[in-house]
């Protein structure tokens, strides 16, 4: 291949590189006004998806794209500018706050500890729970159940629920390192629903008859026990933006905090903000 051909090819490639750069800017601005991209926590996902459906019904012409992936996905993506709002089921770290991310509470949430409906165990103390997840207690009979090995299911590391559970239940103790990992709220639920010896933790918002939520220290997870803080494993659910929310993102967040929506989330076992922060 002679010099002329090489020069031609290289110059065309440079042209394409420049075009790509322009497209990059175009892409950032295109459709920003009417499309809202949200990603993040699999615990917040069920809530926000339904809110988004309502939002789109009432505001024709706007599109809200919601996807899960885990709290860390939401935070990382909103930091990188890939999405407008990140969903998080854990508190932001100092570094995340310092990098300009702003969290807004849209609901409170119980982390329910769930077992298979066939499991006779109804209650665990916080210490027992910790020991089970740390691997110190390995058999159900040690906590009043059947003589079966406990199958511990943990969330993946993208999970804000895992972070929150770690903070609230485990403290400084590590999770046992041979627990099965499931990458999402739904996956955990279906695993526990189909495995008699399983135990795990999911947001109360998705608990249904396929799994059984057990009491912790005699306290059942519910709206009331969150309000009076007797159910210890509770946390805030956030929508996170980079900097102060603007434009469509701000509109949507306000919508989430509106009375109509906040009253509606009770039906889904999520706890409205005002209920707790009276």
């Amino acid at each position, binding site marked *: 291949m002679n010099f002329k051909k090489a020069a031609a090819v290289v110059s065309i490639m440079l042209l394409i590189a420049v075009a790509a750069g322009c497209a990059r800017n175009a892409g950032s601005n295109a459709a920003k006004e009417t499309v809202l991209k949200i990603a993040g926590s699999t615990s917040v996902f*069920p809530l926000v998806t339904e809110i988004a459906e309502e939002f789109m019904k009432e505001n024709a012409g706007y*599109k809200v*794209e919601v996807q899960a992936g885990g709290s860390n996905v939401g935070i990382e993506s909103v930091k990188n500018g890939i999405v407008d709002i990140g969903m998080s089921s854990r508190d932001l770290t100092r570094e995340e706050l310092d990098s300009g991310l702003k969290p807004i509470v849209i609901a409170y949430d119980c982390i329910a500890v769930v077992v298979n409906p066939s499991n006779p165990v109804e209650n665990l103390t916080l210490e027992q729970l910790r020991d089970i997840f740390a691997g110190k207690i390995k058999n159900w009979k040690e906590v009043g159940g059947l003589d079966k090995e406990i199958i511990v299911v943990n969330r993946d590391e993208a999970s804000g629920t895992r972070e929150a559970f770690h903070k609230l239940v485990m403290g400084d103790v590590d999770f046992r390192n041979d627990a099965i990992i499931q990458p999402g709220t739904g996956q955990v639920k*279906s695993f526990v629903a189909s495995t008699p010896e399983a135990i795990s933790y999911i947001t109360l918002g998705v608990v249904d008859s396929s799994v059984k939520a057990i009491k912790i220290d005699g306290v059942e997870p519910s709206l009331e026990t969150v309000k009076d803080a007797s159910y210890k494993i509770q946390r805030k659910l956030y929508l996170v933006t980079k900097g102060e929310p603007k434009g469509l993102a701000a509109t949507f967040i306000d919508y989430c905090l509106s009375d109509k929506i906040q009253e509606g989330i009770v039906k889904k076992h999520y706890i409205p903000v005002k209920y707790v922060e009276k």
Partner: protein
Amino acid sequence: MYRWRKFINNFFIGLTWIASLVVAAVLTYIILYIAAKGVSYVNWGFITGWPKGFEARGGIFPIIVTTFYLTIFSALLVTPVAVGGAVYLTEYSHPASRFSRIIRFAADTLSTVPSIVYGIFGFAFFVVYLGFGWSMLSGSLTLALMILPLVLRSTEEAILDVPRGYREASYALGATKWQTVSRVVLKAAAPRIVTGIILGMGRAFGETAAVMLTAGMAINLPVSVFDGGRNMSSHLYLLATEGISLEAAFGTAFLLLMIILIFNLSAKRIAKRM
């Protein structure tokens, strides 16, 4: 002595029969199982309806559209490059030249790269660096790169199979190189080139990892190339691992399987016309 040899002979030949029957059985089982569980869920409402709620019961219309959007867009992107590259390699270049050996090496290497590596590349480059975000554009560009080796190779083989006599006759009649290539060679190779493209599209249609990382996972009806969306394979993955709406999962799996089988069978049909 002969009887022992005969026994060995029949034994191993019998084994090959069994092996092949096992293979046929596995395929049949997979297709029938999914068909049985999925066909009842797939009706017009499923295909044209929208998923409801976060558990995605209901239809999968936006997901079907996303899948076709990505597949067709990536085919459009890959065809000029793959066909053009193949034409260059077969018609215009000296087979032993440095340049064509580099191209072949590039194509061969690209063909063994795992799809997840395409995914992280697409994510880092198209989604984040170029700022396209989770979009049809990022997804199709990544898919195009992924199926490029496949289409390139099959186009190359199609062109090489065109008998030399065709070209010689064309030149003898005074045609220029371009006239020969476009009106004689490509015309003759066309059915098999199209087959290659269809097979590539079939591959793109069923891709999961690379698409989830570049087109995102939001359920959406994509209009602009900057819109994100979820394709059928990703939907199946998410439904399967969540285990909530298994009926929708089977319905999606059934549709996915059927469409890909149609892709493959029509590719074969077209190739036969060669």
